[in-house]
């Protein structure tokens, strides 16, 4: 089993609903984004265009973050997900410098909310799960996947631009999409990390 994601760039409307759904599901603090949408512009008026690139942990086949982690806090699970053991992480941030996609975040505090009046009840409930002084990132919403659900971003995307599933299962939607789109791309293939997030 190898979990992976396929992202349809032609469908993505750059609304950032996935980013918000991720924050809601995982309760990340201010400034911490496990996934984001990069908006870029190209060309000049009247041929100007705007492009949206959803960016998240690529759960690489050969993850440089796991290779450099000095204490084996980052590892690849049997299902292909790259995970961080928050109880082991020493917060050296070597993985952040080694990640070619800049998708890891350092938890600097878990008691500062978005609003001046302190933490909301929801923030009080979820922020404590984020250990200060450690690094974290997208988990493909492992807690949801265990229950047979899609990651929150996939569930939420209004344009149906995100697809999640087992890349090894030929019957899965992601495997079929990759078969139908042989030109599917990964980010920074020259880094040699073999990402499991594909863009079509």
């Amino acid at each position: 089993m190898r979990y992976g994601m396929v992202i349809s760039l032609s469908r993505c409307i750059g609304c950032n609903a996935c980013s918000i759904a991720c924050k809601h599901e995982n309760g990340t603090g201010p400034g911490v984004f496990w996934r984001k949408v990069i908006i870029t512009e190209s060309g000049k008026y009247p041929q100007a265009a705007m492009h949206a690139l959803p960016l998240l942990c690529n759960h690489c086949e050969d993850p440089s973050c796991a290779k450099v982690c000095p204490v084996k806090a980052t590892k690849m699970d049997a299902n292909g997900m790259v995970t961080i053991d928050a109880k082991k992480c020493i917060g050296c941030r070597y993985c952040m410098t080694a990640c070619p996609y800049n998708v890891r975040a350092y938890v600097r505090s878990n008691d500062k909310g978005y609003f001046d009046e302190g933490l909301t009840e929801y923030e009080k409930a979820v922020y404590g799960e984020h250990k200060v002084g450690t690094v974290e990132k997208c988990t493909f919403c492992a807690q949801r996947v265990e229950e047979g659900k899609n990651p929150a971003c996939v569930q939420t995307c209004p344009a149906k631009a995100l697809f999640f599933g087992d890349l090894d299962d030929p019957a899965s939607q992601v495997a079929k999409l990759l078969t139908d789109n042989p030109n599917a791309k990964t980010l920074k293939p020259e880094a040699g990390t073999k990402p499991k997030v594909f863009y079509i």
Partner: protein
Amino acid sequence: MTNSASNEAKRSTAGNLILPVAGLLAVIGVACWVVQLIVGPSVLADTIPWGVYIAAFFLLAGAGSGLVMMAAAGDWGILPALKDWRRSLLIGAAASYIAAGFMILLDLGQPVRIYNFFVSPNFTSMFVWDFLFLLVTVVLVLICFFRKETSKWLLGLTAVTALGIVLIEGWILAVNPVTVWNSALIPVVFLVEAIVVAVAVLLAAKGDAFESLKKILIGLLPLLLIFSLIEMFAGNYMGASQEAAGTKLLLTGSLAPFYWGWVVLGVALPFVLLLWKGARAGAVKLAAVLAVCGVLLAKINLLVAGQALPFEGGTIGYFPSIVEIGGMLGGLGLAVFLFVLGKNFFGDAPAAVEASAETEEAKAPAEAETEAEA
């Protein structure tokens, strides 16, 4: 009072001030660490993962390694003038390594979990290699220091492991597929910087004694600038956009004050001061201190430039927080404090040192005369 007696008194006053000033800096550094432990890493700059703490770590670990190599060079007759400085060099190396360890403790988000290096080491990580080489080198330095009989073979082995530290730390950056870092030259630059810092520390301690070390520094300082130019030329010749962005960042972007500060204050000015024939000991010491500061600036430039150009485009700014600056100065102060303390506690061989310095001074004109006769 004669002029020489007056100068001696001034030197003695300055010497007496070093220990309390360095101690105060070390206390400030520890205080910054305590603040961090209480408040959390939110007191640090939040834009760049590796900032001045890692730069100071690289500087101090490099200084320790450079000093071990100098001690070995003395024992092996490559730099005979350093033979009698063996003990001082080893104390300096141990002090630098301990201060480097302090910088790592400051940098870690979970310093208590450092025991994971022992219980769950990942041997593919260069951090583990670095940790092991540091550990082995510190142990060897202590053995070399406390052993009654000196062994040039043991010190030679220590110099090899010290060299390993410098190369591994260079590779930690060089193997990353990151603009500015991804260069095979980085470990070489780290090695030259380690020797520059070690030589500069010796000159700062005894500015007018070592003519041969002055020459080494005069040769190595421009070499660092040449390395920088080689990197920029190689990166920009084919017009790669990321490389161009890295160069722009250093030459005219947000890092320009630091880059040009390094060129002018860290390379050019010490180079001119060292070339100045009539320079007094004070000028040589100033040049040495500037060279050390220059290496620190160069390491900050390298670290930040590699992280300031993220995958998603744009540029990330960085300026260390007050706590980071205090912590970094604390680490540097700790190295000096431990060195002076160690030297006072364990003693040195001042007679031999003075004799060695005089021998070298006397030897230089004699050698020149021999060459002229030939």
